[in-house]
């Protein structure tokens, strides 16, 4: 996967979905675009899971700050 940022990857994914919606995709391209969209989604999910894990790791520390003394 490329080192694209979240928004950049999301833009590419949205563009692929839009091309599906608009019927611009030929059958020859369909597999390639589907594969690309799946790769982007999996990459974003991995990144999201990693971020969620980091948030989970930080949450107790944050909770320590927010809990009542």
């Amino acid at each position: 996967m490329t080192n694209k940022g979240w928004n950049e990857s999301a833009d590419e994914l949205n563009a692929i979905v839009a091309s599906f919606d608009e019927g611009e995709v030929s059958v020859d391209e369909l597999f390639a675009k589907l594969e690309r969209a799946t790769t982007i989604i999996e990459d974003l999910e991995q990144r999201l899971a990693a971020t969620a894990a980091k948030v989970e790791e930080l949450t107790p520390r944050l909770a320590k700050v927010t809990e009542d003394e």
Partner: protein
Amino acid sequence: MNEDESLERVVLNVGEFYELVTGHLEAAFGRRRPQWVRGEIAKVYEKSHLYLDLVDAGSASDTRRPVLNAHCWATAWGALKRRLAADGVTLAAGAVVNLRGYVDVYAPQGKIGFTITEVDVEGLLGDLAKRRQELIARLEREGLLTRNKELPVPVVPLRVGLVASPGTEGYRDFTGQLVRSGYAFDVAVVTTLVQGDGAPEQIVRALERLDAAHCDVICVVRGGGSKGDLACFDDEGVARAIALAQTPIFTGIGHTGDESVADLVAHTRAITPTKLGEELVLLVAQWHLRNVRQPAQALERFSNDLLEEASEYLRERRRTVVFAVRDRLRAEVRHLGTLRQRLVREGRQLVETETKWLASTRQLLSAYDPSRRLAQGWSIVTTRQGLLVRSLADVDEGSEIDVRVSDGVVAGVVTRKVAP
């Protein structure tokens, strides 16, 4: 010598003289008969017994003023002193008092004195209250009641100057609140007396010292006690030191209901040392809440919301991609189906058209069918090699020819060629 002269001639020794004086005094006042005396205290001395020099009020500067040497013996002074202290009364020079007691003569020192049995506390309290009100009025006229209150308190008052007596209950109550809060209070303590004659001067010096140390706030702390114990906080010097300080002064003096002049001029007044500690902790806690805890809570909420939003986005995109691809594939299948139908339809049409064309052509060609011509009597002449003979030039005399007729072939030889 008359009788008066004979009396004058009576010579008394000193002891007899004092006996006579004592007798006359007791005759005049009655033996130990109570008598009220009012005067201004010129001098006070206490060593087990209490000794007062009493003068007429306002005559303190007159060297020829009458002085009454009053005293209260230790047996009576202990209880009286406790009662005065409970009422917040201190017998100090300058105070005008009504004393109850009786006249006595102390021959060893040649003094006519006054043994105190009671002090008019009501009168003293009235006097103290009057002087206190006068002080408050003076401070108000000079704008000193509100001066310290106008100073801003730092948003996180962690550097605390403390005027107190370590080891006292008030000190423990106050510092206990700070310690239990868990916040990093940095407390600079200047130890002072918090009651008694020496206390005001020490408190003033402590306030000046801490004021120069640039603390966030200075706290003056003293636990509960009698009015007399707390009298140092009604001292004018203490009040002025508080009012004129450049640092906000917080007080936590005595118990609920005690309000000293120090409390009146202070920036913030708490009813007890414990409450003062709580208020200080509350200030820091409020800042902590606003600037640390609430942002942290917001950050937690924000990150959770963002993660949830991103997860929902990906779930939706995944569904959309799957559906879009399915739709696209279905559309292609439909398209192919349509094409197939079209091809079948068009193929049939083509076959029909071609069939018609073939029939038509066949019909057209039938008009040129040689068998039909042969049946009509026409014949077709070809060379032996099968080439049509259309002209005299196509054959030579003597060459063999075939003449096709309707029912067979006539073989022949060209004998001659005749031009029409």
